């Protein structure tokens, strides 16, 4: 690298690293420092509180159980769809990733409408078997794991499917040529090669489950988990205790991260061979019927939550009490969303806050990815760590960190008053989406021949012209995909919002919760449908763009 390059690298890297240290690291330091503000007193309080101990255990139990459940659904489904041909395969493949298209809180609400005590499925079962009361109650640990399994198996399914697609089928043929039975091939060849995909997705499920807020918040009943316990402590004014709980939650997440990394430590190979594998036709008539029926059932289960939310969005508020299905339908819910200022406000809030956050993500994450992929400098490892860090910290912890840091104006300690203003939520969304956008841009830039930048510079182009004509076009697919993903998560964000929102800047998710509390199911569902439509529109826009550049 020449001298001018080195100077310029630091010129860009210094502000980016400083910004990340300030917004990503500093709040966590504030939280940890806060937990020790009275010496060890808050920690003693935490250790002697039965409810906190219960919350920690429950959080960890739920996380591991969610991993097991997601693997139990995701892996077989990926094998079934990837390796076998049967009637209904295409439909099943098309809807298999559907749960991922539900914003977190919306998924939980759909489950409430379906399987809750007064849910459609619950009531139907009750009616059919003429039971005096609901056959089950959707609450507690099993309910949370049930919801997690439904929303999170998608990660496992997608990772393992991608692994299977890149799996070199000649390896399988070689193994069978050497006399290995089907079971031995699976155990000794296929599964070990899929381990990276399995471990990677299991880690993702673990982190999501540990930080999960909406399912425990809505279905928890008497159950305590760390993420909800943090909010309770904060609302009770026990900030010191909230800091301890946040620290413990973050440490658990990082411990989980290290544990899964360790489990996957032997990975030294990559699957890259592209092979066109023939799917095996299921031949037995009986088995064919069985899988077809199974496929239909699974498809219905997967589509049902979406349908339910749409259905309820047309139900008149307050009319649905003890009937199986809502008795009265109306367009009023939607009309009110767009005509009543109080109901329209959250939509404007969410969209504008998501736009601000995404714009910041695009700029900062592009610069960070550019530095990480194309520049060699001594701060690179630090930058990589900073960019990945928000991923390892549960959203509740991020939010509490921001609440602890940006709660007053004090320039000497680098504090700015943002809590209670418009800016605090976009900041939280921005931080949460850094890893997502940065890794999307990084993967695009990694596909670029690094000598393109040298070539442009050598032909006399200034740094700006090189950026504009060479680097940004190369980064574009990742920038667009990352920006859309960030916008999608920000517009439906719930977990950080619930800690930081005020009435003036309440996002859609908080309004959905408020409507649920007021038993205005129709309005809550109409908001949810709107969110789903926003997500779908953005996803289609992304896909359309991908096709245009491909």
């Amino acid at each position, binding site marked *: *690298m*020449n*001298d*001018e*390059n080195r100077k310029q690298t630091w010129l860009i890297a210094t502000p980016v690293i400083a910004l990340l240290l300030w917004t990503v690291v500093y709040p966590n330091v504030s939280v940890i420092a806060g937990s020790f503000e009275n010496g060890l007193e808050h920690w003693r309080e935490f250790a002697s509180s039965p409810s906190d101990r219960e919350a920690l255990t429950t959080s960890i139990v739920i996380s591991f159980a969610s991993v097991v459940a997601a693997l139990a659904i995701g892996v077989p489904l990926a094998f079934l769809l990837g390796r076998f041909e049967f009637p209904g395969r295409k439909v099943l493949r098309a809807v298999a990733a559907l749960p991922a298209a539900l914003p977190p809180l919306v998924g939980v609400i759909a489950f409430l409408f379906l399987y809750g005590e007064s849910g459609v499925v619950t009531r139907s079962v009750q009616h059919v078997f003429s039971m005096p009361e609901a056959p089950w109650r959707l609450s507690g640990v099993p309910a949370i794991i049930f919801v997690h399994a439904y929303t999170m198996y998608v990660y496992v399914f997608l990772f393992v499917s991608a692994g299977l697609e890149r799996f070199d089928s000649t390896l399988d043929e070689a193994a069978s040529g050497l006399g290995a039975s089907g079971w031995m091939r699976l155990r000794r060849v296929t599964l070990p090669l899929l381990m990276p995909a399995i471990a990677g997705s299991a880690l993702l499920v673990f982190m999501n489950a540990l930080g999960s807020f909406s399912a425990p918040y809505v279905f928890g009943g008497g159950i305590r988990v760390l993420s909800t316990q943090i909010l309770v402590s904060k609302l009770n004014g026990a900030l010191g205790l909230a800091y301890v709980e946040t620290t413990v939650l973050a440490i658990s997440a990082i411990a989980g991260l290290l544990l899964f990394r360790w489990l996957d430590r032997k990975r030294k190979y990559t699957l890259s061979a592209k092979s066109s594998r023939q799917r095996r036709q299921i031949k037995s008539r009986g088995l064919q019927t069985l899988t077809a029926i199974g496929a239909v059932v699974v498809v219905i289960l997967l589509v049902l939550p979406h349908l339910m939310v749409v259905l309820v969005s047309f139900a008149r508020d307050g009319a649905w009490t003890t009937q199986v299905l809502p008795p009265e339908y109306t367009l009023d819910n939607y009309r009110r969303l767009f005509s009543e200022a109080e109901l329209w406000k959250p939509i404007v809030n969410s969209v504008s806050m998501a736009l601000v956050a995404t714009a910041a993500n695009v700029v900062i994450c592009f610069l960070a990815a550019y530095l990480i992929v194309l520049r060699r400098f001594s701060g690179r490892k630090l930058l990589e760590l900073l960019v990945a860090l928000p991923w390892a910290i549960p959203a509740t912890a991020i939010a509490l960190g921001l609440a602890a840091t940006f709660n007053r104006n004090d320039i000497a300690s680098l504090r700015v008053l943002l809590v209670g203003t418009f800016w605090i939520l976009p900041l939280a969304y921005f931080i949460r989406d850094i890893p997502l956008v940065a890794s999307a841009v990084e993967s695009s830039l990694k596909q670029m*021949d690094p*000598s*393109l930048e*040298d*070539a*442009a*510079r*050598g*032909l*006399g*182009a*200034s740094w700006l*012209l090189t950026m504009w*004509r*060479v680097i940004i*076009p*190369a980064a574009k697919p990742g920038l667009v995909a990352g920006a859309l993903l960030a916008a999608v998560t920000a517009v439906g964000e719930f977990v950080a919002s619930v800690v930081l929102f005020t009435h003036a800047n309440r996002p859609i998710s908080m309004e959905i919760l408020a409507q649920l509390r007021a038993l205005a199911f129709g309005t809550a569902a109409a908001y949810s449908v709107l969110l789903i439509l926003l997500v779908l529109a953005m996803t289609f826009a992304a896909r359309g763009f991908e096709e245009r550049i491909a």
Partner: protein
Amino acid sequence: MIKAPQAAALTLRNIGKRFGDYVAVDDVSLTVAPGELVALIGASGSGKTTTLRIVAGYESPDSGSILLGDADITRLPPQKRGFGMVFQHYALFPQMPVVENVAFGLEARGVGKTERLAKAREVLASVGLEGRADRAVQNLSGGEQQRVALARALVIEPKALLLDEPLSNLDPTLRQTTREDLRAQLHSAGVPALFVTHDQEDAFAVADRIALLKQGKLLQTGTPEELYNCPLSRDVASFIGRAVIVPAQVTESAAVLRVGEQSILFQATHAPGAQPPRGQSAIVLRPHSLRIAENGAKGLSGKISERRFTGSLVMYRVRLGDGAVVEVESKNHSYHENDSVMLVPGEKAVAVIDG
């Protein structure tokens, strides 16, 4: 073709570069005259690409300087040097069609769109790609991509041309014709041209002079003939061409190769300017340095251990009485493995190097 108005020589003066403890370039000095083609050759890791990148401005040397004419350009960033560079994998911008790739250097110089595209088309025509101007670069063959990269470097009327392995991605048949084209195009640009290659056939075919690097050090600079016929050292002799190096007794202009009781006398030569070795030294045997005596003349007896047909010639490996194996090429196809033969000196002088 585009001519540089006042072409100046490119000079590398005592260039040194380390990466941590690793010495990549060690005190390299070299001058390339306007219109001259110099090949930097060496094995991988010899520092040839690093040297080229220092000349281009992508790396800063730890010591030494780069001069263009009399101007010291060592600290000048690449975008201000005005050199044309052809990268190993061409580094064509994938999102721009061919003509925009070629015009990019003019765009960077603020040339208006109509003018720069017209000029780019002109240069494309000069490398025989007029029909490809609006194609996507991905849809070109390897040879065409190479020519686009060259056109892109030529269009800016570069003060020097730098090429990193310009032929290494081409298939062997294409390589032959491309070498000739490349040589003609570089010569007609009339500026110093420095190109890196690990392939000595490329270097022989294209370059006016060759600079051989090993472990960052410049071993020898000279015409292909000088390096082949008069290597300065064992390293040069064994890198350039096929060579067997054997000990010999050396005088002013002759060398005696002795095997047991038998001996033969060679005419000897050595690298110009070097101190001629005397006494017990070594000589470089090329495949034409020895020939198989047809009529029982006196020489070194040996036995053919391997016979390899190469077309017009046959390459014989002959094991001498002391076990040493030499290579001898011959027009005579009639010898076979295990035949006993007598070897006598060829017509050309052999090079003498330090034993």
